């Protein structure tokens, strides 16, 4: 179980407990956190579950696969630490993770 903070672009914060083994996207969806669409249901195909992760957490979240990197690079919002939340598996070491959501998932 890990406590994850989802930060909307407007600053609104959602702190939820997510079971290990789920993805960060599933944690948001299961708790009704707005701002993550996940149109493809977590198959790394749509790019609508984007989040930003700050430097200290990046290594713990694991590296983006080639497919993930090639999917998110085309999205208009840019910046370091961009990941697809459906590709980040929750584990105990992610307890305390903060993910920031973009203004829009369009």
């Amino acid at each position, binding site marked *: 179980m890990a406590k994850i903070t989802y930060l909307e672009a407007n600053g609104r914060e959602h702190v939820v407990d997510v079971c290990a083994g789920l993805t960060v996207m599933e944690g948001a969806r299961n708790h009704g956190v707005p701002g993550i669409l996940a*149109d*493809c249901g977590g198959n790394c*195909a*749509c790019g609508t579950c984007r989040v930003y992760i700050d430097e200290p957490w990046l290594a713990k979240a694991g590296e983006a696969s080639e497919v993930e*990197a*090639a999917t998110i690079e085309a999205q208009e919002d840019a910046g370091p630490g961009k990941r697809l939340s459906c590709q980040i598996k929750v584990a105990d070491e992610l307890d305390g993770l903060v993910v920031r959501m973009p203004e829009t998932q369009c």
Partner: protein
Amino acid sequence: MQALAELDLPYLPVETEEFAADPVRYFNAAKVQHPWIAESDIGFFIHEYTAIRELLLQDDKMRPAYDGIIEQMGARGTPWGRFTEEQLISLPAEKHRFLRDTFAAKFTPRFANQLRPMMRQTISELLDEWTPSGRMDFEEMASYFPISNMFTLVGAPREEIPAIRSSLETLGLAFSMDKNRLPEIHEAYERLEDLVQRLIANRRANPEAGNPDDLLALLINTGDEGNVDPRQLADLIIFFFIAGYDTSKNVLTYAMFKMLDRPDIYERCGADHEYCRKVVEESLRYFNPGSVPRFAAEDIVFRDVLLPKDTMLWFTLNISGHDPGTFEDPERFDPDRPIAPEKRQIAFSLGKHMCLGQYIARAQLQEALHLIPQRIRNPRLAGEYGWRPYPGAWGLKGLPIEFTPA
């Protein structure tokens, strides 16, 4: 909780020509009687945008219904029937996931962007060929765009484009649920299967003769690495052709049709490549050819209505963008319309079967919408047009135009 049989559901004559010519009118009338579900002779139709979104994302409760289509068409045991029942989208979850993940690298936005120069060259060559007379069937010209791109991607011999185009035209009508079409469907499928088997055999026998970085090479190599069955490899390439033909062609044709009445949008497309991206998204909201068939894999309770296990459900992606409950003034074609993330067009479906080729389709449409207005000036409707059967692959049949060549 209500049973489906207890609901007084509207009936939709989906197989009729009148329906195919204006399904939105029928669905809007149906909404008065029931807001999100209607019945027909081929199953139930889910037509409200939010209902489609909420249900399609419950992948685990449904399964693709292509076996139901084959059953209704009486095509079980035929090569086309086998393919349709075993194609990528119909495979069990684990196998589907494995194959999809295996080939996903060649369907990312990055890969689609790398294909743009090839797409621009293809559409430019088609315009060179088709524009001098100042008249054309736009749909016919548009049909050669995705198929030419697909032939390039798998290194297929270009002289076979007309025959395979004919096959894909026929196979695109397969889900019109008209049994009279079966003989031509079978013939069309055999022709496509023959091409795909030759492509694979030739590339295996002589890999140096092909482009080592093309899609065929990737499919063969990653297929071999993942121990993909030869039958499934061939099916994937057949699926690639079928899935990539009517979809892009029908959307491009309909976008042109809409812009015949909107020269302002058309001319701006020719001048502004980035604006074309917005026109693509609005075109996909306004029109797309897709209806997604599913069976309920278990009893599903949705909005207090029981959808029993094995109920056949059609998800009407094609008219979902006209839902007045979601889209303000839905009949207005407006590429500058603000897009709320939860109200995005859903032409590429949702969930684990979301279209693998969506980025290639978007790139093709954007490139075509930018180059066509530069070569086809002041297009006007120049004759009758018709409609392809509903549920699909739905779209315009023929779009005769006249114009000033440039």
